[in-house]
């Protein structure tokens, strides 16, 4: 582990930027893949052009070529060739923003890359939402009419496609956002200098880029009309876009598996000395639980989607009753992943909440062990509840009651978190900077989302609400409370860590005070229209339901959220360039990442630190969490003011 000092900071040519190179490699490979399929078909005496098969192989080739062009495979190829590669991979280091568009093996750069990609996808998916929300603002078809043609689709098909894309791209954005937080924070928090497998880390990140390209390309390939769930037989009959949807999700899933594996190994193997599991920052626990779900359950959605792809390609019949198949099997496989996946979306967000509350309340996290273990309880019980999405699907009837019991059990460990949070702020000394506002907002919203879960879990009431906007309201509240709000809290909170500058507090507060009420309006509105009879995934609704006003309000709320997000982006861009220079530890946090310079140096800690106390002992006279310089004689009982750079 000798310091490599000779790497200089360069200004890259356009073609050495990984993103550009990858894309350049991708296009010919796509064509070659298509050519091979057509050639083989000609030889077999079939009509040459089969769009499904051609695009499948083309996209597969394209993805591999992208990964090669981006440079993620270089070291592995060398290794296979028996060449020596350094333990800490070195990538060319570029100046400024180009660095984030090029391959890097530094977990902090990769974390920022994840976050950036996540925000881009969030914007795209949000834009889709605003389009279809405009259509839904009034009853009757406004502009997505049946005889309209938009990118080659008629209005209704276009609605279905952007609605489905909104769902899946948002979910992609969420997975990437979770990846961003885990990647950036876990090594810093446990005192590692990087992830366990830096090359795999870069590979997993870059895989998302072609995946996102395939997902968005569906819009131009006939679309698809199944929602993000892709149920057969509808998905078997759907246009070409469907196949690219499956491939895109497959690659995102693969990335998620590899990323999770990396996180687990990092946490288990690379913790600083003295950091036993119950002395890890609480966020690490949630990242751990998340990764366990990611590495296991994700395989099943991959399998389910592959089987449908095979149905489309080879006429197989897993889910086709006339072939002896059964569409219910798909739903079992799909939800076996997709239910645990919802906890992937939120657990790290809840980790951020637990992480920030003590800092802004100047009080220890109430019941650390309970909060830590509740994440695992949620993850484990979360594996046993998947069929609650299928209460009305016509699955085996005897499964309904047991799955109702298991589903409702999840409320218990989630409740432990809520009560512990309230107890943490109770009698604390609270201050309300933007990250704290987002954390408090997140708690209230996630509470709304969580509490709207049990009515779905109780079979008899689910018979009414299944596939209605009540469900839509439920999951927007859980997703906003469990991911969107905490993610913004995290960005504001660690902004000084990755830019060295402070965000603008005024703009941050504007963002919050616009987003919170708008969100309540949107979500409560969705729940109400759902109960009153508004089905999901429809482009038009019956005016007789008497829900026009609420629908209009939901649309307006959607736009307000959009505006608030734009304010946030403006804030980020502006502050990254011209924000006030941050002090080393602006929040007076005890967490290790705040004990080093901002932005964090390339190799995190120049000397491994040692954990000597509990992470959240705010208010305990003389307590120390970590000793940054275990080499030197221990500072004895350090007074609290010895915490580095306490700023007001």
């Amino acid at each position, binding site marked *: 582990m000798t310091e490599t000092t000779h790497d200089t900071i360069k200004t890259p040519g356009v073609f050495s930027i990984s993103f550009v190179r990858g894309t350049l490699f991708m296009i010919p490979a796509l064509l070659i893949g298509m050519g091979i399929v057509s050639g083989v078909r000609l030889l077999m005496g079939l009509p040459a052009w089969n769009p499904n098969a051609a695009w499948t192989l083309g996209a597969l080739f394209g993805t591999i070529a992208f990964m090669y062009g981006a440079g993620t495979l270089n070291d592995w190829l060398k290794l296979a060739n028996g060449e020596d590669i350094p333990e800490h991979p070195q990538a060319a280091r570029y100046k400024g923003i180009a660095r984030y568009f090029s391959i890097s093996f530094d977990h902090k750069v990769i974390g920022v890359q994840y976050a950036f990609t996540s925000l881009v996808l969030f914007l795209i998916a949000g834009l889709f939402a605003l389009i279809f929300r405009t259509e839904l603002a009034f009853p009757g078809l406004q502009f997505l009419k049946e005889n309209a043609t938009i990118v080659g689709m008629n209005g209704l098909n276009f609605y279905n496609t952007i609605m489905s894309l909104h769902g899946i791209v948002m979910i992609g954005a969420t997975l990437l956002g979770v990846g961003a937080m885990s990647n950036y924070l876990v090594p810093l928090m446990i005192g590692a200098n990087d992830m366990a497998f830096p090359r795999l880390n870069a590979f997993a990140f870059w895989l998302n880029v072609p995946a996102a390209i395939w997902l968005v390309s569906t819009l131009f390939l006939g679309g698809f009309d199944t929602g993000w769930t892709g149920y057969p037989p509808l998905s078997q*009959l759907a246009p070409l876009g469907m196949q690219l949807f499956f491939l895109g999700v497959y690659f995102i899933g693969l990335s998620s598996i590899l990323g999770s594996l990396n996180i687990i190994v990092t946490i288990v193997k690379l913790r600083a000395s003295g950091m036993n599991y119950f002395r890890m920052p609480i966020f690490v626990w949630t990242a751990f639980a998340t990764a366990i779900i990611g590495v296991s359950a994700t395989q099943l959605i991959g399998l389910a989607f592959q089987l449908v792809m095979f149905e489309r390609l080879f006429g197989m019949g897993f889910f086709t009753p006339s072939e002896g198949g059964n*569409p219910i099997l798909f739903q079992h496989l799909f939800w076996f992943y997709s239910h645990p996946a919802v906890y992937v979306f939120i657990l790290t967000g809840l980790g951020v909440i637990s992480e920030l509350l003590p800092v802004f*309340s100047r009080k220890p996290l109430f019941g*650390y062990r309970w909060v830590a273990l509740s994440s695992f309880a949620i993850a484990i019980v979360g594996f046993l509840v998947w069929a609650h999405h299928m209460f009305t699907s016509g699955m085996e009837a005897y499964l309904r*009651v047991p799955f109702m019991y298991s589903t*409702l059990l999840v409320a218990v460990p989630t409740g432990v978190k809520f009560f512990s949070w309230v107890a943490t702020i109770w009698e604390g000394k609270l201050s309300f900077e933007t990250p704290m506002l987002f954390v408090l907002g997140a708690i209230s919203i996630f509470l709304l989302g969580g509490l709207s879960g049990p009515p779905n879990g109780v079979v008899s009431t689910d*018979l009414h609400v299944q596939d209605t906007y009540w469900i839509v309201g439920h999951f927007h509240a859980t997703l906003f409370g469990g991911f969107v709000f905490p993610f913004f809290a995290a960005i504001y909170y660690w902004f000084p860590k990755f830019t060295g500058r402070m965000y603008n507090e005024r703009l941050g507060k504007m963002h919050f005070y616009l987003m919170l009420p708008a969100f309540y309006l949107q979500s409560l509105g969705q729940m109400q229209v759902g109960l009153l009879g508004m089905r999901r995934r429809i482009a038009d609704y019956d005016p007789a339901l008497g829900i026009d006003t609420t629908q209009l309000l939901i649309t307006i709320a959607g736009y307000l959220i959009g505006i608030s997000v734009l304010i946030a982006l403006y804030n980020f861009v502006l502050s990254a360039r011209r924000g006030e220079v941050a002090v080393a530890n602006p929040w007076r946090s005890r967490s290790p990442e705040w004990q080093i310079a901002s932005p964090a140096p390339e190799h995190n800690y120049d000397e491994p630190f040692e954990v000597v106390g509990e992470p959240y002992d705010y*208010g305990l006279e003389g307590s120390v969490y970590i000793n940054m310089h275990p080499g030197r004689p221990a500072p004895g009982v350090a007074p609290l003011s010895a915490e580095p750079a306490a700023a007001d």
Partner: protein
Amino acid sequence: MKHLIAAGILVVLVTVGLIFGMGQIRLLPVAASAQAQPIDYMFNLEFIVIVFLFSLIVVMMVYSIVVFRRKRGDTTDAKHVEGNTRLEVVWTAIPLMTVLAFAYLGSWSLGETTRADPKPLEVNVIAAQWVWRFEYPTLGIVSNELRLPVDKQVLLHLWSTDVIHSFWVPEFRVKQDALPDGGELTRDLRITPNRIGEYKVRCAELCGLKHSFMESPVIVMAQADFDAWVAEQTGESADPVERGQKWYTTYGCNACHSLDGTPGVGPSWKGIYGEQVKFTDGTSSVVDDNYLYESIRNPALKIVQGYQNLMPANVAVDLTDDKINDIIRFIESLK
């Protein structure tokens, strides 16, 4: 302690206020079936618990926000409280008991909604892209409206001819998916309508292009009116054209084929009989009985130019040759 008491009183007030407020807004459509009763009972119970828990946590939070603010310039920390195992056990155990109670009540209410009456009226509900067909096997009626006598249990047998659809009448509360091809995958649903009126069955599972519009009337009528309707329906017309017109709607051809010349998902039937029709492979044919029969039985064989192969292959499995003949006579009449 004084803080806890103050916050506790606020929680109670807010809970009561919210429950009262929720009574003022519309939350559920009218209940029109016996099954809706246990379900609405559960809904009300759930709403109360939700409101209480929401108030409990949010009020405590807002109270802290207001009361426990940090003074400007105060850099000291708060009192060091690490946790309290007894409290943790309490707030694990109480929710645990609550959810177990809910699960128990849930099973009870589910049992109520599936309770079978001895002699229900049986109706086959056949869903297809994007129409509903209702067959009354004991009465020999096929219809696009679901007409039901009030206060008598109906046993629906649901299946679909193409993709998954879902049978839902919001006023009845209960919902069930219809799975492709029937047979072993036929699913049952019991409903006892108890309120005369007109409702709509609304397909609740995304089923493609026109899922939004897959709605059909559901009419709950007095037994005497129902009997009169049955008598009217069972007298079948002697005119094949009239019969064909009926099959046109009952078998759902109207979802894709118009009668007035406007193209839909499939070509309009107006004036096609006897004309030339061009196919995507360049060939063409005259529209006669044979061609029509073939394109109904085997739609994928020849695809009309300007259209895609979207007509469901098994759309005609339930059509006898006689019925197809009626349809052809009907198409002929549209010259």
